[in-house]
């Protein structure tokens, strides 16, 4: 069986892992393949071979640029090794426009996709999440396990396992920072008071090699030692083992089937020529929006308003009653360190999560400008010593989401135009739920020793969470051209499988990259099994 995987992000990695472990398929990966700039990559490579105390100051400066605040978005855009290549336009953002403040840097052309710069959080979806899906979590469990057995995984069994089990052995997390450690100790001391308010806490589960972490504090700007997982690591490994043929520098424009045999029309970024790639099976994993545009362009779904379900993100800064001693990101890891989980029903379907981040350099740079002038610097420092930033998520069924409309391109060698716009709802439910979340947090504040800064709580712009999908959701009885079957096929295709979050029926407030990988793995595993049978 010859297979083409379009894309090289986490969903594509899930497909590749399933196919290479369960079949003898010949696999070609077609990818835009944007890379980190050479100078930054060289600096990163030099740092990876030395211990932090031996790093050259110039290299450290080059790779540790912090997140950038943009005009419309309160949550800054991360930089990776000093570069924006994860978000940058290698051609895949051509023709993309947005209105109403919707985030427009939403399709990655990077080798590894957005997993180059993600928060690295790994949690399985709660069992009850699948109440709205056409299959139960138990069908996905072997795939979750397969992914967790393959990628680096650190975490511990704690109260969060009541909803989010750890499947498979995990590395322990390195020591937490002082602030999060205090919050978790407060939770342990007052567990019943906190739980009585419908709040649970636990440590983060992360896609990184906890044992290899040197606590240099650079997680948020890129780990020089590649301790944090990126899908690119999976592809590097599969290329090295000659299990896949990686073809970078191609932008997929169109998909189709001729006599049941699928093809991908892709433009070479080097020559500008459009080439046709054929296979027995095609897996589409360009990220939910990239895939949505590719499908719409291929099936001529012009001007149709396609709704994207998004787990809306909100910013929840919290101030501790006691400040930390050492205001530095050195000597710790700066990824998400703890999670606040709020179940709103007994089954664990309606869950809100807040990920707690310790101090990192980006917080310093994001201080309001008056607090950075020398006379008020002391006040700024005092606040930073007490600050924990919570990034929260509401499930898609409480979030507004956003809409996508695709227009016919003027040439077959161009991408279709794609316009993103806010959804038409008034957002009252979202605001109501956010108030309910805030109320709970205020109630447990004395126990945890942190108080949410009410005036600074804010919802992020649409598409800013990067947790969106559901444009062509799985269904047992799929509607033609709108829904996919359980292996991601959209009518009339039989051998083209959508494999990323575009097929998610819902997007819960749980971190979702692991579930994207697991579902892609499930789809590819099922297809490979059918092929064997």
């Amino acid at each position, binding site marked *: 069986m010859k297979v083409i995987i379009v894309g090289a992000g986490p969903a594509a990695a899930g497909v590749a892992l399933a196919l290479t472990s369960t079949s003898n398929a010949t696999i070609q990966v077609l990818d835009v393949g944007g890379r980190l700039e050479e100078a930054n990559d060289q600096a990163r490579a030099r740092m990876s071979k030395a211990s932090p105390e031996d790093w050259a100051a110039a290299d450290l400066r080059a790779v540790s640029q912090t997140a950038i605040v943009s005009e419309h978005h309160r949550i800054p855009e991360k930089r990776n090794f000093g570069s924006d290549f994860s978000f940058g336009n290698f051609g895949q953002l051509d023709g993309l426009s947005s209105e109403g403040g919707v985030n427009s840097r939403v399709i990655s052309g990077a080798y590894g996709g957005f997993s180059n710069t993600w928060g690295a959080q790994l949690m399985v979806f709660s*069992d009850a999440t699948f109440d709205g899906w056409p299959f139960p979590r138990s069908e996905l469990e072997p795939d979750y396990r397969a992914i967790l057995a393959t990628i680096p995984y650190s975490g511990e069994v704690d*109260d969060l*396992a009541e*909803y989010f*089990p750890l499947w498979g052995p995990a590395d322990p997390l390195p020591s937490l920072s002082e602030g999060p450690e205090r919050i978790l100790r407060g939770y342990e001391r007052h*567990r*019943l008071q906190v739980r009585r308010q419908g709040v649970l806490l636990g440590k983060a589960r992360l896609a990184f090699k906890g044992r290899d972490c040197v606590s240099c504090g650079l997680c948020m700007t890129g780990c020089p030692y590649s301790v944090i997982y990126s899908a690119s690591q999976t592809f590097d490994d599969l290329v090295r083992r000659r299990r896949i043929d990686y073809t970078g520098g191609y932008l997929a424009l169109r998909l189709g089937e001729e006599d049941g045999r699928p093809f991908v029309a892709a433009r070479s970024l080097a020559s500008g020529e459009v080439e046709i790639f054929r296979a027995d099976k095609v897996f589409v994993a360009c990220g939910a929006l990239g895939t949505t545009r590719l499908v719409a362009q291929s099936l001529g779904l012009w001007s149709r308003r396609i709704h994207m379900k998004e787990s809306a993100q909100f910013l929840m800064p919290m101030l501790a009653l006691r400040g930390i001693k050492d205001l530095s990101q050195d000597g710790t890891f700066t990824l998400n360190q703890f999670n606040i989980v709020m179940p709103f*029903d*007994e089954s*664990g379907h309606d869950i809100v999560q807040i990920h707690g981040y310790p101090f990192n350099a980006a917080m310093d740079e994001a201080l309001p400008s008056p607090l950075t002038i020398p006379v008020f610097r002391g006040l700024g420092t005092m606040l930073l010593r007490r600050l924990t930033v919570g990034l929260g998520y509401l499930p898609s069924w409480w979030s507004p989401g956003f809409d996508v409309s695709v227009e016919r391109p003027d040439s077959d060698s161009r991408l279709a135009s794609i316009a993103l716009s806010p959804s038409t709802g008034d957002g009252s439910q979202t605001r109501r739920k956010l108030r309910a979340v805030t109320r709970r947090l205020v109630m447990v504040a004395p126990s945890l020793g942190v108080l949410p800064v009410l005036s600074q709580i804010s919802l992020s712009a649409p598409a800013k969470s990067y947790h969106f999908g559901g444009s062509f959701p799985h269904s047992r009885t799929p509607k033609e051209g709108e829904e996919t079957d359980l292996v991601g096929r959209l009518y009339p295709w039989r051998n083209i499988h959508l494999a990323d979050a575009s097929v998610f029926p819902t997007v819960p407030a749980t971190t979702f990259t692991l579930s994207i990988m697991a579902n892609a793995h499930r789809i590819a595993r099922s297809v490979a099994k059918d092929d064997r049978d």
Partner: protein
Amino acid sequence: MTVTESRRPLIGVTGSSGYLGRTLVAHLRAADLEVVEYRRGVDDEMNPGVARSFDLARPPDADTFQGVTCLVHAAWDLHETDPLRAWERNVEGSKQVIAAAVAAGIERVIFVSSMSAYFGTRQDYGLMKLAVERTVLEMDHVVVRPGLVYGDNPGGMAQTLSKLAGLPVIPIFRGAHLFTLHVDDFVAAVTTLVEAESVPSSVIGLAHDTPTPFREIMLAMASSAGNSKKTLTIPWHVVLGLLRVLERLNVPLPVRSDSLLGLVRSAAIVPGRDVAEYLALSFREFTL
């Protein structure tokens, strides 16, 4: 959860020195089922096919559950009053028991929870039971929530209420009502769950559908014991506050504030009726 027929069923019951565990063991044995009790104070001379040493405060050994095909986990330490220690012993202890049981290949674990464990409960006991329930369900096993278990020579809360019903004036809390369960229905239901070929992983309330007013329960208990039927309705908030103050002063009490909370703020519904009906479990109306 499906119990296969490859092994002769051996039913483990933790907490067999408690009222429910003890009653259940007697019933299962009377039904000619092989039962191993898990409790403290079992010496090495005892037949491990009959009783094995067990302490919720200590992680089970690798061979603790050897040969057991179905485990009914009813052990719970009600003596520990410190919330942190109670959590450590009961919740963390139970999670270890369940994880060890699953690791030992036990095909069905039935966790005996409580009707106090419902989403939104404010009771410590209910919150702790709820935390264990979540772990059981995540592992695809079965939770039962018995209502107020009554019968001849009752134990637990019914025993406490029975004592209160023996007072010259019976305290009544307005608006309080409880789901009730006759002890014979409890053992019959658990026996069915033990023996059923297949039981879906779920929470199954073991109680009659209609809650009984607290007043009615107390009067029936008083009448059954031939006591006075004089009642006094008292505001539960006041009693709760008083109990909490006395607890802070370490005054030994017949009823804890947390138990009172369970009486006056009880569950609104009996969960899992569909599963109960599917398994033909039946629960009689409250009568003494």
